């Protein structure tokens, strides 16, 4: 479904991605694991061209991705995205936020006048039902909790009826229980609808739990590729350089704390000692 060859991305003098080769199969739930700043987001953004690759080729569903306006629109209609900060429009109703997922597929001028094809409204409601928010459809989105907002984000992505969903740290701002719920909705939808999912995570235990396959990224390179059971301490060291066994256990125990809290945890341990 996705074929990436020799992908590099440079920001000024900084190499965010240093030659990525990656294949993602149809219907697969792939987790990209790595610390903040490893290049996970850049990788996703290159796939849907929110960032222009410096070099390398990306094939989506057998077609080479290009940057001209027409191919861009076609590509983005097929590839949906879910964001860490949800990126829902706060003042729009939940239903309208989900409907924005259909914008690329409907007549522009009528949508400017807030006129939507009935079939698209039906699709949006169906997607809201999948994340069990149909009773909130009329509410303004800024009245929802973080987890609910992300479910709206998932519904918006599903409303695109995409072949691929890119999820960029979808649960990084949520507590552990909500995180599981949100990731479950995502996994369920991808299984039932056969959507390929590429999901960035920095929490090791979620990666093990949800990833059918895991790709470890560190400093702009792929340093691991394999199943969740192959994610050993040795492998984690390659993905998170400088991470000792203690921190690995801490991360496993308090997944949301993860990388941000690691220095604090280390300090606490020092104080205890």
């Amino acid at each position, binding site marked *: 479904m996705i074929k990436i060859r020799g992908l590099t991305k440079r920001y000024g003098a900084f190499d965010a991605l240093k030659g990525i080769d990656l294949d993602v199969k149809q219907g697969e739930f792939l987790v990209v694991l790595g610390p903040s700043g490893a290049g996970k987001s850049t990788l996703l953004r290159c796939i*849907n061209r*929110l960032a222009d690759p410096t070099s390398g080729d990306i094939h989506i569903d057998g077609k080479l991705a290009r940057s001209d306006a027409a191919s*861009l*629109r*076609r*590509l*983005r*209609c097929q*590839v*949906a*995205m879910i*964001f860490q*900060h*949800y*990126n*829902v*429009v*706060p*003042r*729009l109703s939940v239903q*309208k936020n989900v409907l*924005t*997922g259909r*914008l*690329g*597929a409907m007549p*522009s001028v009528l*949508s*400017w006048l807030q006129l939507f094809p009935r079939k698209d409204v039906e699709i949006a409601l169906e997607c809201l039902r999948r994340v069990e928010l149909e009773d909130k459809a009329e509410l*303004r989105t800024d009245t929802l909790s973080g987890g609910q907002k992300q479910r709206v*984000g998932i519904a*918006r992505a599903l409303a*695109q009826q995409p072949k691929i969903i890119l999820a960029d740290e979808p649960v990084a701002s949520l507590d552990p229980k909500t995180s599981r719920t949100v990731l479950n909705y995502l996994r369920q939808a991808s299984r039932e609808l056969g959507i390929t999912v590429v999901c960035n995570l920095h929490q090791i235990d979620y990666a093990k739990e949800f990833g059918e396959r895991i790709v470890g990224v560190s400093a702009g390179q792929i340093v691991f590729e394999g199943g969740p059971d192959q994610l050993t301490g040795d492998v984690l060291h390659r993905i998170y350089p400088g991470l000792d066994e203690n921190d690995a256990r801490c991360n496993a125990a308090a997944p949301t704390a993860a990388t941000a809290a690691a220095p604090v945890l280390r300090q606490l341990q020092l104080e205890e000692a």
Partner: protein
Amino acid sequence: MNIGSYTLLVAKPTGNLGWLPRIATGVVAVAVLAWAAAGAQVSFTELTKGLPWIGDILSRMLPPNWAFLDKLVRPAIETIQIALWGTLLSVILAVPVCFFAARNLTPNRVVYQFTRQLFNVTRGINEIILALVFVAAVGLGPFPGVLALAVHGAGMLGKFFAESIEEIDQGPIEALRATGAGAVQTIIFGVLPQVVTAWIAVVLYRFETNLRQATVLGMVGAGGIGFELVGSMKLFQYHDTATCIVVIIAMVMVADYVSSRLRSWIQKGAHA
């Protein structure tokens, strides 16, 4: 430093020069103010000498001629009508252009600079001067006043609209682009919902300003209550002038009250 039971807390100057830069800044500031006072002939002795004359004019104005109120109803209404259409036209002129003047939406730097400067020019010319030009173009009456407010207001609103667009959360915009939405769709569903309250507040403020400006536009023949004000002064009918001033003050106060109430109501999160 301790003064009695008080402690003076002043941030100590950093850098090698100690207090020198601060003292120098103070000296320069005083020098500039003295220079400006000489140029503007600021003179408190003149003011004191003039006080009796101000008292004289006031005594000729008071009490206001309340009978004159009858004749002011129509010009006052006309002033509101001028302000209303001046504001509406300036919104219509500013909205299509402001997206090009926002750094996060503009297609390129040339367009950005051009639209910014366009707003600067229209905003830079005072309403009275614009009104003089439009009176010459379309003749005496309220319509040149409307045009003057529209052109000046478009510059001011365009700048504020563009700046509020620059302050929005980019996340939803990126999300809409990622769904394959077009540029206009992105603006309608991603930008407008985020700026609408700020825009309404600015437009209300602009209406209030326009009402104030419309009261003086009549001085150059562009309609409204200012025309009556200047007329009464020319005829030395100072009691009538006082009535005009009272009406103007009342209108401005009502406009200020209503628009500030509306603004706070909207910002508290009335449904958009």
